[in-house]
């Protein structure tokens, strides 16, 4: 071996050693698992949110008698939406339980006023049998997205269901239980059960002019966990307003927008709503955020809107998080809440609270001249507009539209309203934020524009009656409650292309069995109060036949309450209310009512003098700014 070859071989060996050394510092492709840490114990997103309700499903063996079993049966469908079939069919005898299926249309909600056992005996085999009649009113069908769909306008609301029961031994037990042998085709649920098994939840959509929020009442099962409620609410928001609202509300979340993941809490008290890129095309981002904030305000203290995972900076909002208070003014109910009421006393408008004064539009020199012989009035929330119905010298009535902001006569301008006639003019109701008002005139509904001209209000569906005697515009200005032919309705209010051009949408009847209805007013954004006589239960605490007074119903006819429970049986002639602030809660706002020539105020369920007075003053025609 030559010396050169030896050197070459040595160089190769050294090179190989270097290569082997460097080859040892590559990226590993194997190895044992390395534990970084123990996985954090996570679980649900906070104990206070995991409102897992206890399992208290109604079962037939707890019923003590046939009537009790039927009452439990009306609760069963609402107890657990995920187990309707098993829960409800448990009330049926085994032969019919196997074939019974839930109604795909949803839960039929009925207000049961009485359960009557019409027959209870033993048959020839010695088996106990009974027949129970449930009577009440049909409220509607609780369908998808928590929407309560009212029955068609012409359909009778009267409800009656006859149940045949048989008493059979409890399987694997020694006792007996009553079971239904003739299951109804619908999946039934009583309003009473609905009030306990479902939470009324308000979604908010935008008004057509994108200036305010329009409430849309929905129902969420109390069995749904709070974290999931957020996701469900956002899904409902994405699906748009309920059909009943129609064109009175629009969705400022663009069509086609999808939810990216569930709506979850990220960090402390911040809930993230992550939407698909379609949301980036929203022309009214502020209204979109307001919809989310107000709709989720009970489930999410603070929100962050994300599009495709990236936080959205909303104009006018500091940071990327917001809550309902950020968009407080977008809910018109908050503006009029807590405002002072007024009434007419001796032909003059006076504040219901003694230490209050009249707004400028009612206290200027011109107004001072016109604030006489007043029969009814309406006032805007900002105090800039007033509509006065005054007694004319010819024995009729005249209507004046007053607006603040002029240069003469104390800066108030009053314009006589034309086209309404001189007789049969009811209590006007101003649309919020405008000078347009609705006025019932001799059974018809007229709108008064800012120019003082009156127009006939049209209906998208022909009203069953037509004799409109009272009207009240909701704080959002997109819904209206009216009394026509002695029946109470709520309907969407559509604004036409011209000033004062209004259209009443699909009418939804409320309290259909009530009589002697006088006036109606909005006490909450989803509740109306009216004067009338009726009953909601023949067996419950309000039993004892129809009661006169001030009743409060939800706009979908589900919930009801007699506000004047301890104040006699009189039906008030007139009433007015300021809505409660939805951000603060409250059963209703301040209600002023006029009965027997005196003014009274409802606080809670107590009726008393208004404004801390010792006795009810003389007066009539109460009203609140709207």
């Amino acid at each position: 071996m030559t010396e050169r070859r030896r050197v070459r071989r040595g160089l190769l060996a050294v090179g190989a050693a270097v290569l082997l050394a460097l080859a040892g510092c590559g990226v590993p492709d194997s190895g044992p698992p390395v534990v970084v840490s123990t996985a954090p114990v996570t679980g649900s997103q906070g104990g206070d949110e995991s409102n897992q309700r206890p399992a208290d499903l109604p079962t037939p063996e707890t019923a003590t008698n046939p009537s009790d079993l039927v009452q439990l049966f009306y609760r069963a469908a609402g107890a657990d939406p995920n187990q309707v079939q098993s829960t409800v069919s448990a009330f049926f005898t085994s032969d019919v339980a196997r074939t019974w299926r839930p109604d795909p249309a949803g839960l039929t909600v009925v207000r049961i006023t009485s359960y009557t056992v019409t027959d209870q005996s033993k048959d020839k085999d010695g088996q106990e049998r009974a027949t129970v009649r449930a009577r009440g009113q049909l409220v509607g069908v609780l369908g998808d997205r928590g929407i309560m769909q009212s029955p068609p306008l012409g359909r009778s609301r009267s409800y009656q269901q006859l149940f045949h029961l048989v008493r059979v031994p409890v399987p694997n037990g020694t006792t007996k239980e009553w079971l239904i042998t003739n299951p109804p085709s619908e999946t039934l649920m009583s309003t009473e059960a609905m009030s306990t098994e479902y939470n009324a939840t308000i979604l908010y959509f935008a008004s057509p002019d994108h200036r305010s929020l329009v409430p849309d009442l929905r129902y969420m099962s109390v069995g749904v966990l709070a974290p999931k409620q957020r996701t469900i609410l956002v899904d409902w928001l994405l699906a748009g307003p309920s059909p009943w609202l129609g064109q009175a509300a629009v969705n400022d979340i663009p069509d086609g927008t999808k939810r990216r993941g569930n709506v979850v809490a990220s960090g402390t008290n911040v809930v993230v709503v992550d939407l698909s890129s379609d949301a980036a095309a929203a022309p009214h981002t502020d209204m979109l955020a307001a919809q989310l904030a107000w709709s989720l305000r009970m489930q999410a203290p603070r929100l962050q809107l994300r599009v495709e995972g990236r936080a959205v900076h909303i104009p006018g909002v500091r940071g990327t998080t917001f809550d309902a208070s950020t968009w407080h003014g977008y809910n018109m109910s908050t503006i009029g809440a807590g405002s002072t009421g007024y009434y007419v006393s001796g032909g003059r408008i006076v504040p219901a609270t003694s230490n209050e004064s009249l707004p400028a539009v009612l206290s200027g020199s011109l107004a001072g001249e016109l604030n006489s012989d007043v029969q009814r009035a309406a006032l805007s929330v900002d105090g800039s507009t007033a509509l006065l119905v005054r007694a004319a010298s010819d024995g009729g009535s005249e209507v004046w539209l007053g607006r603040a902001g002029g240069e003469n006569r104390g800066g108030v301008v009053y314009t006589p309203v034309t086209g309404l006639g001189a007789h049969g003019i009811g209590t006007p109701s101003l649309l919020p934020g405008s000078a347009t008002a609705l006025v019932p005139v001799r059974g018809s509904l007229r709108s008064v524009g800012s120019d003082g001209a009156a127009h006939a209000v049209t209906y998208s569906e022909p009203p069953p009656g037509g004799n409109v005697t009272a009207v009240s515009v909701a704080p959002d200005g997109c819904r209206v409650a009216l009394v026509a032919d002695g029946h109470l309705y709520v309907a969407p209010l559509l604004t036409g292309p011209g000033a004062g051009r209004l259209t009443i949408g699909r009418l939804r009847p409320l309290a259909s069995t009530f009589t002697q209805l006088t006036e109606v007013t909005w006490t909450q954004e989803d509740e109306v109060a009216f004067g009338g006589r009726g009953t909601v239960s023949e067996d419950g605490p309000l039993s004892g036949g129809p009661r006169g007074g001030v009743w409060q119903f939800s706009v979908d006819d589900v919930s009801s309450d007699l506000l004047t429970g301890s104040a006699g049986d009189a039906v008030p002639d007139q009433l007015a209310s300021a809505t409660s602030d939805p951000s603060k809660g409250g059963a209703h706002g301040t209600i002023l009512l006029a009965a027997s020539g005196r003014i009274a105020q409802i606080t809670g369920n107590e009726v008393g003098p208004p404004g801390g007075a010792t006795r009810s003053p003389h007066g009539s025609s109460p009203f609140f700014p709207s």
Partner: protein
Amino acid sequence: MRATVDAAVRWIRRTARRLAPGVMRRLRRAFGPWRRSLNLRVVSITLLVSSLLVAAFGYFVAKQITAGLLVAKREAAIRQVSNGANTVEQQLSTLSGPQDPELGRNVRDVVVSLYNEATRAGTYEVKLVPDAQLDTAPYGGPADPASIKVPPALRDVVSRQGTLAYQFTTANPGGGALKPYLAVGVHVDVGWGVFDLYYLFPLDDEVSAANLIRTTMIVAGVALVLLLALMAAIVTRMVVTPVRAAARTAQRLSAGLLHERMEVHGEDDLARLAASFNQMASNLQTQIVRLEELSRLQRRFTSDVSHELRTPLTTVRMAADMLYAGRDDFPPTAARSAELLADELDRFEALLTDLLEISRFDAGFAVLDAEAVDLVPIVQRAVDGFAVLAERLRCPVHLMLPDGPVIAEVDPRRVERVLRNLIGNAIEHGEHRPVEVRLAADDRAVALAVRDHGIGLRSGEEKLVFNRFWRADPSRARQTGGTGLGLSISLEDARLHGGWLEAWGAPGQGSQFRLTVPARAGDRIVSSPLPLVPPDADVLPSGPLALPPGPTRANAGAPGGTDD
């Protein structure tokens, strides 16, 4: 068992003994050039050391960079997985429970949202594995969920121990060849159930970076090593070249070329070394020339003196012979003086003869008159010449000769002179004990050994006996009238033959002198037919004895391996 082990050990020892010389010879041969070449040694050492340093440095740097890349990747991956776990927990905890009809869709949605998320960890595969008690299937993506394989060991650690863990593995979720992946898993408890979330992060970027780093380090390292080797070679060459020139010059100087000088370039250290070397060479040349001149003058003086003494000595000899011849007519005292004069004149004449012979050796005039002769008669004749003396000193001489003739190309006169010298010395120092004379021969050499059993030689005297006028014990009386130059002349005679003259002795055991000459004149001898140490000696010598240096070294063969 023990016997087997012992046998194996013995076999190993035998094999090692058998192979060891060969291995050592190969090693010596392999390292021969390395030992001989300073340039090769420096370059190879530089190459080796720099390679080790560069390799160590490159390994450290590459390892650190790669480790840094992997740590960054791992931390980003863990952060990503932790965020993913939060997302899974947030998303799935909103469900009502295992029976939620939207569970399957939510599992798919959350996985899709996880792998669609743009992160620093790059692209990755995600797999969400529900607990076995949950009635929903695992889901993963963006690759086919079935192709996303999670290492079983990682699944075991994550699922059973409820941990966040990672593992380096290989996978091919997209098909094709296996590639390195970083698998990270975490156990997620969503309140109503548990899931295992796994991410597979491809390490393609890290592999590419590591390859780039490694390639760069290798190329740079090899270039650096070669550069260092080249620099070492250049530097060594710059240093070694003058050293080699100095060595060559020194060799030439030692060969007698006293005018040889180194070239002096520049003014650096090497130039000073060359100048100093040249100065030293000049000084040495001057000294050597002076000493040669002195030696030459001394030899000439000795020769001249010997020659000049011979003429008057002849006259004195004639006169002394006349006196010796007429001593019977002299009174006893005068007769004894005449006898003493004759004896001393014999010794003086012998001394003069030896001096002249030494002078001829010193002057290089000695010439070998070799011819093929039978050495047996020469030996017998030399022994017979000492018969009277031996008898007088009661020292018998035993002659041990081969049966046949021993033919060798030698100068018979010089061989006989050497033999007489050795036999005379043996009889003189034999202490009345027998003297043995042996003659032996082989194909290449002829040996003569003269063994006595006298007082012997002390250690170190084996070399001194060949010095001129050396006497072991100056107080001892000389019986044979030697001049003190006999062994010196004998040594020169042996060298002139190209042979060896060696001595062995031990106190109390006598001594032995061995003359070995080549059988054919001019041949080189490598061994002797007779041992230097006699077989009856009790003490073994420490080794073969070397010839003392002599002036006719060129004609004397170096002692080689002997059979003693």
